[in-house]
């Protein structure tokens, strides 16, 4: 699988119910670059990330993934190269952090040891055997972020990733993001407050 070099969003318009969103938005994101999507609530930031992840089909325009030698298959790229971190954390409250974390990491290409190491790096090792329901929102978000570092995938789609995190977790996550970019990764994040790393801003109107 040739690696993902460039994400191309070309004149994309989405539809939610009867409303058209993004009005033909175009932007690129190349390896090693972060793009911050800003805009009012309901402007379509989340819908854009879900469209890139392949969940919603644009009414018009195209979303393309390009490798070193031309266009890659969108479905395969999404299945192997794409992380989506949404508002919902995707964790089953009934199971323990360890079980959910190992499942999520193994499912997205990492392995159990990488999951546990990642948890240790983000200071979660004490919580591993707690059921997820006992975790705070910030701790749950850190569990999700472990998936990003434990299962290496080039494209990170982050929907307001910093909101539930406290100050030093934000700084720590900033370092993780810059390491990802340095390694040739791509980040597209929908944000309200600016990211702790340098990023090109793309504003979308309602």
């Amino acid at each position, binding site marked *: 699988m040739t690696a993902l070099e460039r994400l191309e969003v070309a004149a994309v318009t989405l539809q939610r*119910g*009867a409303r058209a969103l993004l009005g033909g938005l175009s932007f690129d994101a190349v390896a090693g670059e972060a793009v911050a999507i800003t805009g009012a609530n309901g402007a379509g930031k989340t819908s854009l990330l879900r469209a890139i992840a392949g969940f919603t089909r644009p009414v018009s325009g195209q979303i393309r993934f390009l490798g070193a030698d031309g266009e890659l298959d969108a479905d395969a790229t999404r299945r192997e190269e794409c992380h989506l971190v949404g508002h919902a954390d995707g964790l089953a409250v009934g199971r323990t952090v360890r079980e959910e974390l190992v499942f999520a990491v193994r499912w997205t290409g990492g392995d159990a040891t990488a999951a546990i190491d990642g948890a240790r790096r983000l200071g979660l090792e004490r919580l591993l055997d707690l059921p997820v329901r006992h975790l705070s929102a910030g701790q749950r978000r850190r569990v999700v972020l472990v998936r990003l570092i434990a299962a290496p995938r080039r494209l990170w789609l982050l929907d307001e990733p910093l909101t539930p995190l406290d100050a030093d977790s934000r700084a720590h996550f900033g370092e993780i993001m810059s390491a990802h970019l340095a390694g040739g990764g791509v980040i597209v994040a929908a944000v309200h407050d600016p990211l702790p790393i340098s990023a090109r801003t793309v504003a979308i109107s309602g």
Partner: protein
Amino acid sequence: MIATLANPLKFMAFSRWAAPALGVVAAILIGWGLALGLAAPPDYQQGETVRIMFVHVPAAWVSMLAYACLGAASFVSLVFRHALADAAARAVAPLGAMFTAMALITGSLWGRPMWGAWWVWGDARLVSVLVLFLLFVGYIALRASIEDEVKAARAAEILALIGLINLPVIKFSVNWWNTLHQGESIMRAGGSTLAPVYLLPLLLVGAGYSAAFGALWLARTRGEVWRRRGASLTLQAALS
């Protein structure tokens, strides 16, 4: 996709005259068929109640036709994402449910004098029409319970296709089930053993019912197109 309904000029122009025309044809056919049917002599075995067949069999036949149309419209809408097909699918469901209800009521009224029971489990066709009625109710309930029109359409289309694939299996299983319990009930006269004097009226009324279904479906789809046009206009007015 739903809101920006490709303006089906062709359909609206065609249905503007086709719906009333079909309606008139239906009235003539049904009237003529019933007149012949009522004038026919009573059946030696069933007496006068055989005349209920003229309103029962066509209703059962059209309810099957209606579900086939629902399945076809859903398939076109699902595969070709054609908004008009979805309007047609949404429009046909209540008609199908009503025709099945008419078939059930007339069917049990027909069985009443013969079997002395208000519901004849021995009649395989009646039982499959009952299942068909539940399929229509399920479709309407699913569609009614989802707010977002686009998602409601997609979910309802998938259900209609599952139902369409299941329909022949259901009919087969009910008929097979009926042969199992054959010992307990004799097969009622109808279908092949029909006296010729009843066949012509039955065919006329059947054709009339189908034409009426066509007219109602076209008219109801027009109503659906107007409703969606109105919905998108109100939305645009609110948003602009």
